[in-house]
């Protein structure tokens, strides 16, 4: 089922959060709302659930206008950050809760709930109390509870952020698998860019109530459109662009920046606020000691050995740049204070500043 927001206005105590916001979540997709706290992603989710009513505009489930339909008749499954299991009921009773509300006979409900618990690997916990389960187990129960009612729409409100790193990685695979199996349109809210990149079909990047960019994880990562998107997803290095110079012989654009002339194959229009965005793993150390296009001199300010990767911070004429290098591909580790020349590639993206 396709879900859409149409011209949504949302005011909080006189402050406008959304202004004429439009957004379409395609049917069957795993759709992620990504942004820092206060960007409005949770409000969008709560608008879909029906806990919040928009000040103006419509919310459509398929072709149906559900704007004025209350939560309990919207047929959505929701998973909360703090699990929200009913503490006085057993695991099985928790999963059966939504089925009972749909007047499904007890036997059938128990059967379906058990099957769902089995799918999340917790059938042996059916009679336990929620308090006796670990955080990861509780969140799996919450997933089972939301999915067993076969909702039209699944809403995930930062379901992983209360868990520790290892569990998070494990559980995000399970959540993605469950979504793919069921084919239920899913909206996922997170502030964690890694989670968003790993799980989503589509990502919408939000900044202060505005959707900055929508695209597949690869698109968002490789071709960010704004300084905000480039910085929030993957933490790109940003260098301001002051002017465009005549293009190189092969058509590559040449751009004037504080660190010298840089190259880019991006076709974005240049404005007064344009920046070049470069991922830390795109930049490499050059052996050349002659200056040229795309070559930037600098001094190693900080080196951090992280195992497979060594991270460097290099001081240049445009501030510090971060570089990630494969440890095994380096002839020798570079030391703090060493003079280096960086090679900035043509894949650099032109992004729009504020």
């Amino acid at each position: 089922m396709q879900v859409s927001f149409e011209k949504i206005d949302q005011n909080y105590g006189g402050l406008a959060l959304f202004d004429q916001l439009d957004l379409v979540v395609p049917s069957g997709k795993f759709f992620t709302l990504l942004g820092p706290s206060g960007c409005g992603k949770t409000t969008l989710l709560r608008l879909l659930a029906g806990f919040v009513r928009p000040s103006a505009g419509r919310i459509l489930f398929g072709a149906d206008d559900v704007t004025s339909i209350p939560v309990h008749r919207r047929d959505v499954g929701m998973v909360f950050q703090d699990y929200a299991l009913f503490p006085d009921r057993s695991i099985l009773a928790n999963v059966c809760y939504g089925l009972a509300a749909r007047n499904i006979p007890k036997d059938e409900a128990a059967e379906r709930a058990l099957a769902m618990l089995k799918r999340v690997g917790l059938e042996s916990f059916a009679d336990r109390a929620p308090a006796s389960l670990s955080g990861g187990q509780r969140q799996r129960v919450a997933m089972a509870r939301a999915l067993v009612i076969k909702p039209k729409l699944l809403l995930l409100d930062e379901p992983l952020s209360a868990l520790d790193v290892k569990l998070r990685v494990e559980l995000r695979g399970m959540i993605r698998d469950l979504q793919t199996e069921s084919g239920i349109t899913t909206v996922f809210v997170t502030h964690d860019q890694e989670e968003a990149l790993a799980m989503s079909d589509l990502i919408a990047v939000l900044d202060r109530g505005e959707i900055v960019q929508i695209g597949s994880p690869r698109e968002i990562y490789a071709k960010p459109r704004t300084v905000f998107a480039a910085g929030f997803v993957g933490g790109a290095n940003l260098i301001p662009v002051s002017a465009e110079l005549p293009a190189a012989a092969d058509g590559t654009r040449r751009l004037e920046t504080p660190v010298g002339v840089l190259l880019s194959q991006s076709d974005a229009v240049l404005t007064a606020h344009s920046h070049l965005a470069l991922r830390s793993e795109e930049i490499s150390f050059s052996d050349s000691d002659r200056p040229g296009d795309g070559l930037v001199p600098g001094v190693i300010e900080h080196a951090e050995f992280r195992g497979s990767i060594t991270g460097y911070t290099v001081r240049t004429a445009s501030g510090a740049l971060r570089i990630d290098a494969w440890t095994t591909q380096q002839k020798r580790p570079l030391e703090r204070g060493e003079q280096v020349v960086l090679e900035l590639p043509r894949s650099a993206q032109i992004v729009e500043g504020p």
Partner: protein
Amino acid sequence: MAVVVARCNFPLIGLVTALPLITLVIPDVVVAASWILILGKQGLLNSWLEPLGVQLPSLYSWWGLVFVMTLNNYVYAFVAVLVGLKSMDRNLEEAALSLGRPMGRVLGGVTMPLLLPSVFAGALIVFTHVIGSFGIPAILGARTPVLAVKAYNEFVSEMGGNPQMQTTMASLLVFLGAGMLLIQKFVVERRQFQMESGRAPFPVPVAGWRSALATSSVVIIVALSLLPTVAVIITAFTPSIGPVLRYGGFTLAHLQHALIRAPEPLYNSLFLATIATAAGTFFSVAAAYLIVKRRSALSNCLDVLVMLPLTIAGTVLGIAMVNAFNSGWLVLTGTWVIMALAYFLRRVPTSVRAAVGPLHNLKDSIEEASMSLGVSPIQSFFRVVLPVIGPSVIAAAILMWVTTLSELSATIVLYFGGMNTMPIEIFQQVDSGRLAIACAYSLLQLLAIFIPLAVARCIFRLKVGTLE
């Protein structure tokens, strides 16, 4: 004393933590009556000491009043401090110890300042209780006029008395109560430290003479608190001729009188308490839900309003209600409704607070989860919210029931012929010198209070903290 209890481990510690329950639920009147038995002019102690030529100071004096009131109310302060101590972070004391301070100075320099808000709060509770208390001074304070009793006397003689005097004294009481509550709000809350909710300190095992000292002091205090009850029970079975008691004998006559010949006070009390509790519980849950989960200007008002009766002494509330419902479109004076209403008003603040606590801890998302699973908001409340807050609501209801049973200060101005409650009956019997019958009623009252309490304690594991 609370410091000793919270931090040390010694025999009989369980007895002390159960203490608050016991002393809290014994009605004022019973306490006063029993102290008369023990220390009164013809009391046990005086008749023993008389041959020895020792003359105790009269119980009917200022000192007697202070003595009995202290014993009757110290528990409130004790509970407040105990809760404060238990919620303190162990790391703070350990940090101070690791910086090289001896334990004694740590207690004085670190623990005490942090405890100050709790001590203040406890003191204030005791103050408001004492200033509004009626039962004890009415019985003992013949020579020491107290505001609440004075207001009552003026009221009783109101038909020909001085209505201005009466309202002046009532206002004075209200101002004192409200003033104290304000002081608590501004002084105590500002002094409240944000305490990282850490682990509670370990109790220190104590042995040898310290253990003996601690145990014996606890035993003495508990004994002092329980002495009245014991005296009441004995007296209820002691034969008497007029006001003179003959100890050593045994009779069921008094109980028979209380149970069979004149059982109306018992019925009346049970009836009124049940009505008021049912209404109060229902109202409290609804009010607490509005206050916690549906924040708005209106529910903020409600929040303040439900706490208001706390500042009004029972007698004053009674007088105010008599005057308010004496004429006009709603005449309630002289009916049982006004009595139930007064009980309801007096106990609602406590019940609301009892329901507010667990509601605060209940996350919004639980209710939202229920709604998202297809259950309507109202049904969600009954299916998800109520079961979670249920135990503490029931505990509060039982407490309300129990305290209502022993309510005297408002009843004394509201009751009318044929609607005697137990405390009234006890008060009147004591007043006319028939101590034995008073004790028989007291015994019944104690039973009526302890049986449901014991049942509740078994079922819901009523905790000391929930009494606050």
